[in-house]
């Protein structure tokens, strides 16, 4: 029996991007379904009754919610040749710690730059600090996990497509403030899975402008 894999997401979600990249990395065939967050499908609400959010990964009828949990599930279900997480317990915990850090810190801060009037300046400063912490963790490695693209890279890379938004609203250049991270992001974009999934920064910026009724 062939696997049936469905992913409910929205194109601009950096969380949905994580799951898509993981599926692409593992070359899993999946049915991508774009959701309208202002008119959520009954299927989405049925598959994620607790949070009613995307992304939702449905594997042979069984839903898995929360993007990082989905990435780990994908890694464990389709081990293949390219593991996304290390097998050593300590290295694994280390990777999950940084992905968790990204989850706890990045979006909640970055969002304040464009979604809450008056917070751009402070939130921009905080975001730069968070990215600098991540740059120190990256060090001079190719990817967060070392030589191979993996879990932490997947956790973070989606945010790169939102740099245009953060730069515009925060009146800054994240590329100049965080050159190491920018170099890392461009390296990730050379991977087919990432270039296929990440939207153009301009497209995201235009979408946010339209959503906020600007331009």
């Amino acid at each position, binding site marked *: 029996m062939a696997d049936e894999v469905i992913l409910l997401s929205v194109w601009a979600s950096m969380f949905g991007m994580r799951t898509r990249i993981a599926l692409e990395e593992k070359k899993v065939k999946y049915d991508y379904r774009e959701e309208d967050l202002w008119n959520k499908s009954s299927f989405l609400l049925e598959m994620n009754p*607790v949070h009613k959010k995307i992304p939702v990964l449905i*594997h042979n009828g*069984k839903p*898995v*919610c*929360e993007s990082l*949990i*989905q990435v*780990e*599930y994908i890694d*464990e*279900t389709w081990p293949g040749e390219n593991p996304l997480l290390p097998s050593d*317990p*300590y290295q*694994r*915990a280390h990777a*999950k*710690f940084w992905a*968790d*850090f990204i989850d706890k810190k990045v979006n909640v801060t970055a969002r304040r730059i464009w979604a809450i009037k008056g917070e751009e300046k402070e939130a921009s400063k905080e975001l730069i600090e968070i990215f600098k*912490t991540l740059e120190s963790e990256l060090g001079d490695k190719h990817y967060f996990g070392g030589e191979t693209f993996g879990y932490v890279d997947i956790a973070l890379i989606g945010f790169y497509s939102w740099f245009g938004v953060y730069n515009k609203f925060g009146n800054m250049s994240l590329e100049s403030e965080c050159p190491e991270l920018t170099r890392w992001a461009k390296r990730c974009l050379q991977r087919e899975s990432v270039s296929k999934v990440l939207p153009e920064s301009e497209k995201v910026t235009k979408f946010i402008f339209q959503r906020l009724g600007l331009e």
Partner: protein
Amino acid sequence: MANKEKDVKLLGFWASPFSRRVEMALKLKGVSYEYLEQDIVDKSALLLELNPVFKKVPVLVHNGKILAESHLILEYIDQTWKSNPILPQDPYEKAMARFWAKFVDEQVGPVCFKSVVKAEKGIEIAIEEAQELITFLEKELTGKDFFGGKTIGFLDLVAGSMIPFCLARSWEGMEIDMIPEEKFPELNRWIRNLNDIEVVSECIPHREKQIEHMMKVVERIKLA
């Protein structure tokens, strides 16, 4: 085997459900460890050195390797010491355990405690919203002795440190009957089942002391 246990230290705080659950896991696996009680207000240089990112307990140190974040520590313990497995083998069951554990710490904890204390829309609505979340857990327990099935697992350690001891004692101190038997028969049965598990009951903070502590936290929240 003995080499693995050579150097296990746990930095914790007696009233923290996050550090208590790590103790439960270590005891479940029969791992001996050195416990270092931390002052979470006046943080030690050691804590700040070992967890510079979040500056929080628990922190586990194993043969020089430093681990923070209780869920990650539990998974590390499970992968390092193989007796009495905490997480299921099946990837889907694992994903479910992780999902519900995240739900307990990120939703149930704050909504059933801080939001109830603040009661911004009034106490009745706060209790209703809290019970709505707890109902999800009630459903998860239906027909099971524990979240993990016949024996305690990952979610039992996470929810078992958070709900019956930390949250329940807060509700007791605030005189709120949050999980009455008629409304939450499964949860109440699970709490009774947990009480019979030695590694859990050994790691419960003293009742009155914890109520007193949680009431101090309540005051701090109200003043903030």
